[in-house]
C-alpha cells in the first residue's frame, strides 16, 4: 500500500512564478514530514521538513504547509528558479515502532522550471 502519495508525476512552471508540489498520506503515525530534492545521477538531498505539531515551516524560498486533518502537505517554492528543476520526493517518518522509526517516500514529482 502506498502510504505517501504524490499524484502529480510532473509539473512545469515558469521561472519567477510559484511552484506548488503536493503530497498526501494515510498513516496517522507519521510525525515528521520531509522533502528531498534529487538531481539526475545524484542521491536525494534533504530540503526542508516539518513536525506534525506545526502547520508551516519556511526556509528562504521554500515553505512547507501541513494540513493534518486532510493528511496533506505541500511544498511552495517562490520565486522558482531554473536550478530548482529536479525530482522532489515527499517523505514521512513513522513513529509507531519506537527505536525503529521508518521513513517512507512518495514516488516523486519532476519539476521543470521554464526560463
Amino acid at each position, binding site marked *: 500500500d502506498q502510504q505517501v502519495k504524490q499524484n502529480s508525476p510532473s509539473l512545469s512552471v515558469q521561472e519567477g512564478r510559484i511552484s506548488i508540489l503536493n503530497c498526501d498520506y494515510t498513516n496517522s503515525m507519521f510525525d515528521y514530514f520531509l522533502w528531498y530534492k534529487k538531481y539526475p545521477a545524484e*542521491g536525494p538531498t534533504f530540503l526542508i521538513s516539518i513536525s506534525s505539531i506545526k502547520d508551516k515551516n519556511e526556509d528562504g524560498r521554500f515553505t512547507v504547509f501541513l494540513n493534518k486533518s486532510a493528511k496533506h502537505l505541500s511544498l511552495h517554492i517562490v520565486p522558482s528558479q531554473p536550478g530548482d528543476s529536479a525530482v522532489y520526493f515527499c517523505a514521512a517518518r513513522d513513529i509507531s515502532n519506537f527505536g525503529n522509526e521508518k521513513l517512507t517516500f512518495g514516488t516523486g514529482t519532476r519539476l521543470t522550471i521554464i526560463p
Partner: protein
Amino acid sequence: EAGVAQSPRYKIIEKRQSVAFWCNPISGHATLYWYQQILGQGPKLLIQFQNNGVVDDSQLPKDRFSAERLKGVDSTLKIQPAKLEDSAVYLCASSLEGWRYTGELFFGEGSRLTVL
C-alpha cells in the same frame, strides 16, 4: 565533511550473476540504510543497520540479497543471483541516531544496476 561514498557508480550484469555494492557512511553516523529505487518510484528501504546490528530487514529479499556492516562502519550489499527486476539504483544513506534523528538522511550518489 566528507559525504556518503558508494561504489561502483554503474554496473551491468547478466541475470543469474552476482554483484556487490560498497558504502562508507559519514563519519560518526551510527545508522546506515540501503534503499532500492526503481525507475519512476520512490526509494524503498531494504535494510537498516544501527552500528553493526540489523534494525530492520523486513523488505530485503533474503533469498537473493544479503548485507553486512562489519565493525559498524562500511557496508556491503550483495545480490546473488540477480534477476531482471533488480535493475535499479541502490542508494546508501546514513543518519544521526537517537533523539537527534528527525528523518534527515544523507544519501550517497547511488549505484545503478542494470541486469540484462
